[in-house]
């Protein structure tokens, strides 16, 4: 019973982290049709940046902000310099981002080495909540991550579907020329979307680098998680990411806890099963 409750809590809080990671990927794709396969490398880079700043300033929040903003700027640069010209060639853009991930991974390896890092969580949330009747306690920081994920989810949903900016963005994606004719700079809108998506993964890297250690190879892991989440939930849908994160997080944890040998296969079988019936993912639009 104890193990069941813990595994479920772990899965749930991990789902929160996956949501933070994958929301940036799906936001950019959903609005711009650009799939960023350097997403895992972005996550890892944010981890290193926020670790470095948090270590220097002894302040977790500075680290998190630095991680998010650095990635925002970096992601925007990648978009403007490498991707913008080919924005409507989906596959070519995807391949270029894969190249970026290769270069980035090697650069990080050269700078930070192969050791694993982990950022210390801020004092104010570094306590454990005792669970009555089990004789064990649960670290509050993980619950904090779940709360953050929920805040980001609600914020994104409100921003895109309820605000004027959201309306402009949606319109700009559907009909670029029309929106341009209205005097709105669509290119600027795209840059802001890419910035926002990269800030999200940057923030995720800062938070994830606090709950779990990170290092060489983490980029591939989180690229896989993000792909699983968006493939299952449906690419381009915030709600889909939430569902995908929940399934991958909770089922993944139960698999790891109870059948460690087949953990990878179980998540994978779930993915195949869902795709067999819904190739576009649970909440994805038909291609």
């Amino acid at each position, binding site marked *: 019973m104890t193990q069941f409750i813990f595994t479920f809590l772990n899965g749930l809080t991990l789902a929160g982290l996956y949501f933070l990671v994958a929301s940036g990927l799906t936001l950019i794709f959903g609005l711009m049709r650009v799939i960023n396969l350097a997403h895992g490398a972005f996550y890892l880079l944010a981890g290193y940046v926020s670790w470095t700043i948090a270590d220097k300033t002894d302040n977790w929040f500075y680290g998190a902000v630095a991680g998010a903003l650095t990635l925002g700027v970096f992601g925007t640069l990648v978009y403007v310099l490498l991707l913008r010209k080919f924005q409507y060639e989906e596959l070519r853009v995807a391949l270029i981002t894969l190249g970026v991930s290769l270069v980035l991974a090697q650069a990080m390896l050269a700078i930070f080495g192969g050791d694993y890092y982990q950022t210390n969580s801020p004092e104010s949330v*570094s306590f454990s909540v005792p669970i009555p009747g089990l004789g064990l306690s649960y670290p509050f920081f993980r619950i904090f991550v779940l709360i953050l994920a929920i805040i980001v989810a609600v914020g994104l949903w409100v921003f895109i579907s309820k605000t004027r900016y959201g309306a402009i963005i949606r319109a700009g994606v559907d009909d670029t020329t029309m929106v341009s004719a209205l005097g709105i700079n669509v290119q600027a809108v795209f840059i802001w979307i890419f910035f926002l998506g990269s800030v999200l993964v940057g923030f995720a890297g800062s938070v994830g680098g606090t*709950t779990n*250690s990170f290092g060489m*190879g983490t980029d591939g892991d989180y690229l896989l998680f993000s792909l699983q989440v968006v493939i299952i939930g449906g690419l381009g849908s915030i709600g889909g990411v939430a569902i995908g994160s929940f399934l991958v997080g909770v089922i993944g944890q139960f698999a790891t806890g109870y059948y460690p040998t087949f953990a990878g296969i179980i998540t994978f079988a779930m993915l195949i099963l869902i795709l067999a019936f819904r190739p576009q993912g649970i909440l994805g639009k038909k291609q």
Partner: protein
Amino acid sequence: MKAQRISRTAIVGVVAGVLAAGLVTAPSSQAAGTIKIGYLNATIGPFAGGAPQITIGLNIALKEIKSTVAGKKIVILEEATDATPQLALEKAKKLIEKDKVDILFGPLSGDEGVAIARLSKKYPKVTFINTTGSASEATNQSPSKNFFRFHGDAAQWSGGVGEIAYKTLGYKKVAIIADDYSFPYANAGGFATGFCKAGGTIVAAQWPALGTKDYSSQIAALPKDVDAIYAGLGGADAVQFLKQAVQFGLKKPLIGGAILVDGTVLGSKADIGDAVLNTIAGGPVPDDSYSTPEYDKFKAQLKAAGTGPNIFSVLGYNSAKSMLAGLVAVKGDLSNNQAAYRKVLSTLKWNTPTGPLSMDKNRNAIVSNFIYQVVSDGKGGFATKSLKRQDKVAQGTKVFGRVNTCADVK
């Protein structure tokens, strides 16, 4: 048709020219007065932090003989690997086939070590000296005549720990939590062999997948009615585990694998205090309080090189020194397919900084192992206290898998 024939003639002419040029440039350029040592080191990848330490050990050993044996200069050709067997095999082939090395020194990781030990059978003219790779099967399964390991395997690194846990500390029931790959298998296997033989029982085991980096579900699954928990984790994983052990309120004494409580873990900034105090652990590197003339001299040499004793610097030095001692003994004579050199190596005996070393019939070393305990340094930090030096720890015949009960090590 005619044009085609002409161009074919032209091609044959070109080809013949290239062929001639190739034959002229082909002869190997082995100078008579050098001994070429190929050096595989995993400087990229998960062990990038430890890899330079092996080089420091190697350099100390080289300096002691001024990189010369009987007038022959020793040349080191280094190739970087990323600790994967695949790249190690490719780089080894390059060193042997292209650079024509006489001796191959390396590799670092256990997985690479197994692959290289198997490869060595394909190159009987080259002598292979392992650096720090500690997988048992490299030497105790179908051993290769030209592959030598001058330190213990991961099971030997637990030598004496199980006995102390049972007899001195009185632990009767132990649960295991260790990473799910070959190194912790062997390390835990070595512990369980001694512990079960002394009378203890293994009641449960958790094997989190490598790269899980989150042990909370496993911590929750550990049984409550045990006397101690054996933790076979290392590096950042160890920090993560210890941190979570505190966060999740796991209140049991720990028995560490060889890399659970090394300097980097004890020095980490994370809050691990409650979990780590009184932990016992064993390994090939003595703790700070250990002192012999050989070890003190070696510590001074390491200090001059800007580091201290750790698994990589110690095993790197012992392996390099053994390799060179053999060369000195045969005066650099590698003729007759290195027969004389290998004979010396397989019966080598010397007092290493970490105790006496001799060789078994599989060309794996019989060495000393060190057991120590984590204590408070009285200033809020940690120190270690030597419990025992277990001498003449030899390799077993088993290749351990997951150890879930005592029956698995019988």
